[in-house]
């Protein structure tokens, strides 16, 4: 050990200084590392440990069983339904948002000009209000004799459609909540498309649609895919929309996890569910990111 240390000992004053600077850097990083360890790693470890504990017990680290996982994958357990709903909602949310956010992102980049900043703020602003409050706002909008129904009746029309407490309105709520998370990566992605390339394609005879398909879309794809991935991951963990707007017409997977942790007081089962969902999302994300060669798409290689 000592020999190696000696052999690698810095020889000049400059190297000594560099070596010391590195160690200062490491020391500066220490609080963050500790914070990450406590704030991020510890809960994950606790969840993982609980998932192997005896069902309905608090025997974390004192028992080891695969029962929780076995019960999740038991064919008679209907928890897969919640999972399927969550995945379905997330996929639809992503699809809807991709269609909605693209024109807005395009506008922010190319059409709105000096209004773009202001319009961006409008999309960010709702994020400063609690999600639950915003969703309750939508309940008041859609509810019988609420804003929509009441206004239509006041205008002498038959009244609003009965959409509240349905899967459809849940999807609406999710699209509403996660719009910014799709919009901003997408806007960034579109901003990465050099104006020159679009001009060049047009100069070479290409029409709007052709340019969109051949140039804009492929080059904006990194941003679009990151937006989609982010939205999907967030949407798969969404509960508030299904609870508040959907009136629990659908039980989503994160609601099932919540039930396990609260009413059922089955922390090990909830943890196991959380682990399964996390592994699913992690696998999906890593697969997507490995397939999605950012360098190649940005033409940096």
């Amino acid at each position, binding site marked *: 050990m000592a020999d190696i240390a000696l052999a690698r000992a810095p020889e000049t004053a400059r190297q000594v200084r560099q070596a010391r600077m590195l160690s200062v850097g490491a020391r500066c990083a220490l609080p963050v590392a500790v914070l990450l360890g406590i704030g991020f790693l510890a809960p994950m470890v606790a969840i993982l440990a609980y998932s192997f504990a005896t069902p309905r017990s608090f025997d974390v680290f004192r028992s080891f069983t695969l029962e929780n996982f076995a019960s999740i994958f038991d064919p008679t357990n209907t928890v897969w339904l919640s999972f399927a709903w969550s995945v379905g909602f997330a996929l639809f949310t992503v699809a809807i948002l991709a269609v909605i956010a693209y024109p807005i992102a395009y506008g922010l980049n190319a059409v709105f000009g000096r209004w773009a900043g202001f319009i961006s703020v409008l999309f960010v602003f709702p994020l400063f209000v609690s999600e639950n409050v915003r969703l309750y706002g939508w309940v008041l909008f859609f509810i019988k004799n609420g804003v929509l129904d009441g206004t239509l009746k006041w205008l002498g029309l038959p009244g609003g459609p009965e959409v509240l407490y349905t899967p459809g309105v849940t999807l609406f709520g999710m699209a509403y909540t996660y719009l910014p998370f799709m919009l901003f990566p997408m806007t960034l992605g579109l901003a990465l498309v*050099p104006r020159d*390339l679009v*001009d060049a394609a047009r*100069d*070479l*005879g290409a029409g709007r649609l052709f340019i969109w398909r051949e140039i804009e879309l492929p080059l904006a794809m990194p941003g679009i895919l990151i937006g989609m991935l982010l939205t999907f991951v967030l949407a798969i963990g969404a509960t508030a929309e299904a609870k508040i707007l959907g009136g629990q017409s659908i039980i989503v997977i994160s609601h099932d996890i919540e039930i396990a942790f609260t009413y059922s007081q089955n922390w090990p089962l909830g943890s196991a569910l959380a682990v399964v969902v996390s592994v699913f999302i992690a696998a999906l994300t890593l697969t997507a990111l490995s397939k999605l060669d950012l360098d190649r*798409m940005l*033409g940096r290689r």
Partner: protein
Amino acid sequence: MLQTLPAASTAVEAPRLPILQLVGVRKMFGGFAAVEGIDLDVREGEFLTIVGPSGSGKTTLLRMLAGMDTPSEGNITLRGELINDVPPNKRPTCLVFQSLALFPHKSVGENIAFALKVKGADAATRKKRALELMRIVRLPDNYHDKNVMKCSGGERQRVALARAFAYDPEVLFFDEPLSALDYKLKKALEKELKDLHRETGKTFIYITHSLEEAMVMSDRIGVMRAGRLVQVGTPEEIYGAPVDRFVSEFVGEVNTLKMKRVGQQWQGVDVPGTFTLGSPQNGAVLDEAFVVIRPEYMRFLAAGERADNQLKGTVYNEYSLGSRIQYQVRVGSKDAGEKVMLVELSRARALPPGASREVTIGWDAADAFTLGS
């Protein structure tokens, strides 16, 4: 001098009819006229270069020609047809961008065949044409499937050029595509571009801030300043007969001396002395004038040698320009006025190593231009 042969003459024998005509073209951005009062006929098959310092409006002019901007006033006609509002994808013109604007997610072949894909050509046709064009721009066949971003700077230039040719445009525009390259490559590509122009017989309109580039390639040069075309002419005309001091200075490093008329004689304002001047360009009668003498028309006078004008001075610096040497000579005196004059000689006529630094420089009136202020 630098351009001994009118290049396109070998390719096009037919009379050079204007293919593009600009009449009173003006472009306003807010209250600012980026381009103003442009009248220009571009002849079929010529290589026309617009030069000017940055901000002179040459890029704006080009964007209007390519259809990416519309003129605020005036008309642009292509073969007699008004094209002011025709979008770029409907014009038989093509622009090679300064950035080249190659599609980074496409291969060399896909980039080149882009215009063909737009027209709906099938994959086999596209590949065949791409390979043909690659041969024309001297790219090896195996580059067809290479990622365009893996190509070198020079190769990318060729891809951009081939891509433009694939559109089969009647007029090609170039927006300083060579500006980012190193000197040697730039020189080689300038020559190649000139050759391609001759081989294809297309009309090329090239913009650059480098007059040197313009001189090498162009049939005609237009000089722009502050949104206006100051002078349009052959390289010889621009170099040999600049219409004003701006053009003359823009054309290259020059010696400029301010003069005033005293009776029948011209007296130096910057440096003391009496000088002999040639007639002014437009034959005007001047009271004040600038004399412009190119460094290569200056010479050192040996004892007893005479020139129309001469000045005593001290060589205080010399630069090697490769085959030539440039001397900086301080003339005049501290009290009466001092000025640095440039003298450029071929190496063969350089001052011998041990020679005195105290020299007499001179030039003949016929070798200088006299310009109004």
